Each structure stands twice: as structure tokens, then as C-alpha cells.
């Protein structure tokens, strides 16, 4: 079976604490998405990332202000 890929905006973090804070803020703000393993294309790491539909990116960036810090956001086909 070939899994269908779809466009995602993926945020990376330097700290697990920030990733979990992002998850909480997104849930509180109704921002769709979930925690995923850090995609290799963002860096071969064992950390967490936040994956969301690309259209959620502005809401995510707005939610982050003053609440949590992310390293960067990259749009990927996952």
C-alpha cells in the first residue's frame, strides 16, 4: 500500500517543554494538528515536532507569541 502524502506545516522545537506547551496552546486555541517525531528532513533528531495543515500556520504563529518558542516551520509533504 502506498500511503498518500499531504502538505503539512511542521514546527520544530529546541526543547520538549516547548513542544508540549505548543500542543497545549494549539488544543486550547482549536488549532488542528498533533505532535509527531521530528521529520528527518528537518534534521535527523529524535525530538518532537508539531504537524499541522498549512492553513493553520498563521494561527500557530499567533498562538506562539509570548506563550512558547519554536525553532522553525517548514512545509513538507508527509
Amino acid at each position, binding site marked *: 500500500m502506498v500511503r498518500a502524502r499531504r502538505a503539512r506545516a511542521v514546527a520544530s522545537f529546541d*526543547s520538549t*517543554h516547548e513542544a508540549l506547551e505548543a500542543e497545549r496552546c494549539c488544543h486550547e486555541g482549536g488549532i488542528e494538528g498533533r505532535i509527531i*517525531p521530528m521529520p528527518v528532513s528537518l534534521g535527523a533528531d529524535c525530538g518532537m515536532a508539531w504537524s499541522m495543515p498549512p492553513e493553520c500556520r498563521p494561527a500557530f504563529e499567533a498562538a506562539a507569541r509570548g506563550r512558547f518558542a519554536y525553532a522553525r516551520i517548514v512545509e513538507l509533504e508527509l
Partner: protein
Amino acid sequence: METIYLNCAATSLDRPACVAEAVMAALGSFGSAARGTSPTELGPARSVTACREGLAQLLGFSHPERVCFTANVTQALNCALWGLLGEGDHVVATDWDHNSVLRPLHSLAAERGVRVDFAPADALGRLSLADFDHLVTPGTRLVVLTHASNLTGNVLDLAPVVSLAHARGALVLLDAAQTAGCIPLDMEALGVDVLCFTGHKALMGPQGTGGLMVAPHVEVEPLLSGGTGVLSFEETQPRSYPEHLEAGTLNGHGLAGLAAAVGWILETGVDTIQAHDQALLSRLLGGLRESLPEGSMTLYGDFVPGAPHAPVVALNLRGWESSSLADALTGDYGITTRAGAHCAPRMHRALGTQDAGSVRLSFGCFTSEEQIDAAVVALAELATEAL
């Protein structure tokens, strides 16, 4: 014979039921926090985060991401001391300090040439602001303060000492092992730069839990380096907190219990716990003074009515060696206390008990009036027996 546990300054025995329930639930469901993104890993990661947040709320700290977990307060203090003090630095500590402060300082003196001065305690175990004023100089890097002596239970009035230290440019490291959870403490209001705590005493969590809170303007070099679950290709420990000071798998099961305990304390209120402890302290002191033959008991410490005091009483009875007295309390009355030197050599020397030691009775929020009364009866009988 009922066991009466009066050794809470060493570790708690009775805990809120939610603590064991949380640990058991964690044992059956937790993978490794921050080592994956499936429910078995995200569950403990969220639990650990909740523990950081609860502790930050309880101890007056607005940066839960800078609550870093260790195995106990000794490891936290080692982390802070080795991470803050460099070659030739000057540090002021006190006679109240536990060996978890003293031994790292002795090692730092030997290995890095750290210069250590100690603020002395008087015969009642009190520290003097005048001594800090004399010892803390503009070149002092760090002042280490023990919030409450684990031997006398005396509580330090932190604000003037912190203020003096900051005025001279020194950082303040607080050992809150005996007070976190039973005496109100607001790290940021006091201006404390690094606070070290243990999870298993008045916080009533499991053993194997502790940590340090590091104010944002303070840089602590890591004591350990290793796996963090993030930034794996960096050759040094990440600069981001809490990973900066947390290498290796955390005690997720223990921290689940600690989170539950802290939640219970927040719900109960530290003020309520302190009032309970103070009432028992008054009851114990009043009972001892009333029931024991005059001149048969020596109490150590400064007991000022209305002043904060940790739930700790150290004493000796005439005609008894401290170790024999503790043994008789256990064997004849089922009362657990702690005899000996209590890892507090400087405090014992200040009190003149370096050869005799003392018996320490310490209690907590699950200790009852009846248990305190039973201890008074036992000590009165033993004091009379030796006359």
C-alpha cells in the same frame, strides 16, 4: 505496638493516597518521557511537564521550563555548586548547611581553589545578618543559604540576606530541602537565583525525585551530559532548558507521584500545612516542658512563639546517649526518630553536640496530636528512668 514515625525530616512515610495511585498508574502505562511521540511517551512527557508546572506554582517561579529534575536535592545542589563556581571563586555558606552542600564545597576548594567562608551559628543555632555583612564582599560569587536547619528546625529570614548578597553582586542559592511543601516560599518575591528541592520530604513525593529551579538570568553549567531526546547531533548539552540540566531518562514514575503530591499540597494549602505543623510543635514543646523532670532535657534551637519553625525538634536527655535514647524509643515505644549527627557537622559543632549527637523528632502533615502526645509520654518515662 503502633509505629509512630517522627523522622519526616529524613523522608516522608505517610503520603496522600493519590501519590501511590499515580506511581502505580505510571508504572503500568508510562514509556519514556520525551523519547517518542506515541501515547506511551507523550503521557509521561505531559506528566513531567505538569510536575514542573505544579512545583513552579507552589514555590513562586514563573518559568516551569527551568524546573530541572534530579534524583534528589544532593544531586541538585551538586549541579548548582559545580555549575556556578569557577576557579578561585569566593562563596559564603553557613553552619546550617548539610553535607550535601559542605562536601561539594570542600571538593570545589580542593579542585578549583574555591574560597569558602561560613557564617557561624550561635548557641541557639541562629545566624546573624552582621556576619553575612562581614563575609559577603563585592567579589563574592555565591551565597548558599539553607532555608531551615535540618537539625534545629530554625528558619532563616531570607529577605535581608538575599538583599545584602545581591547588593554585593553575589548570586543566592537556596537549599529548601526542609521547607518546600511545609513553609510558604516564593522564589521570585525573595529574589532567590537558584532553588534546590527534594521531592520526598515535605513535598511527600517518592524518593528519587528532586531538582533545581534556575532563574532566567543565571547560567548553570551542566554536571552531567548525555541523552536529552532533542538536538542529538550536537556534541554538547543543549542550551535550552530543562534539557540543559537533565541528561538521561527521567524518573517518570516517581515524578508522576510527585506531581500528584504537589497537586494535593496546592489544594490543601501550604499555610494550612504550616499551621498544622506549628500546632504540633507547640504541643510537643509544651508537653515536654510540662512532663519531663526539670533539668533532664536539653533542647537545641531557637523556639520563638509565632515565628516560623520547621517541624523539627532536636534534644538530648540527661543520662542517655542519643543513640541509646533513639533505640529505646523504637524498641519500647515504636517511635522512629533519628539519632546521631544528621549530616550536619558544622551545626553540631556550633551547638557543642559534635561528640554526643542528638535525637531529632520531626513530623509532617499526617502526624497526629495523639502521636505527639505518645512521644511526650515516652520521653518523660525515659527521662525519669535515667534520674
